[in-house]
C-alpha cells in the first residue's frame, strides 16, 4: 500500500475526505477520532491488516503519521 492509499484508508476510518488529512494531522483536529474512533481504528487495523493493538499502543498514536509509521513497521506500507 502506498502512503497516499494509506491516508485514504485512514480518512475512511475517520469518515473524512482524504484531502483533509496529512501526516501531521493531529487526532485533536479530527472530529471522529474520539473514543469510538479509536476503537474503530483498532478494529480496522485488526480486520484489514491483522495488526492487533493494546489500549496502551493506541494511546501513543496521536497523528496520522503515527498510524502510517505503525503500518510501515508492520510491513503494510511501501
Amino acid at each position, binding site marked *: 500500500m502506498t502512503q497516499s492509499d494509506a491516508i485514504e484508508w485512514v480518512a475512511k476510518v475517520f469518515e473524512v475526505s482524504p484531502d483533509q488529512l496529512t501526516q501531521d494531522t493531529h487526532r485533536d483536529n479530527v472530529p471522529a477520532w474520539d473514543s*469510538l474512533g479509536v*476503537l*474503530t481504528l*483498532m*478494529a480496522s487495523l*485488526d*480486520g484489514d491488516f491483522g495488526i492487533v493493538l493494546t*489500549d496502551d499502543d493506541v494511546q501513543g498514536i496521536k497523528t496520522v503519521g503515527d498510524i502510517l509509521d505503525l503500518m510501515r513497521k508492520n510491513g503494510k506500507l511501501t
Partner: protein
Amino acid sequence: MRFILVDKIYELDPGRQIIASKTLPADEELFRDHFPGFPVVPGVLLTEMMAQAAGRCLDADGTRLGRAMLGKINRASFRDWVKPDQEIVLHAKITQNRPTYATADCFAEVAGRKVCSAELFFVFAPHEQFAADYQDEILTAYWNVHPDMQPKRAR
C-alpha cells in the same frame, strides 16, 4: 413495550454465534403509527433485535469486565416487510472479538426468508454502571435449560 427485543435463544456458542428469536404481537402500540392500515416492524427495531442477539452472544462468554453495547451500525439493509405476530429468527456471527470491541455479521429471517441484515460494531460498558443485581433474563432462561453452558464467572 419493554426494550427486551429477544424472546428466546435457540442456539448459543458464546462469543462466536447465536440464533435467537423475537415476535412482536399485533397489539403493540407502535403498530398504530407504523403504519396506519399497514402495520410493519420498524427497521430500527429489527436492527436493535439483531444487536441484542449479538450482544447476548458476546456477554455469554463471561470473560469480559463489561457488557456489550452497540457502538456503530456499519451497514444495514432491509429487504422485506415484517408483519406483527411473525416470528423473527435472529442470527449473529461474531467476526471480531477483542477485549475492548467486537463486530458481528447479523441477519434476520421470517419463515426461512432473509428480511434484513446488518454489520454491527460493539463496545463494552463496565459492569459497575449497571444495577448490582442485574441479570439478563433471556440468557438466564437459556442457562436454566443448558446449565453446562453458563460460564463459571456468571454462576
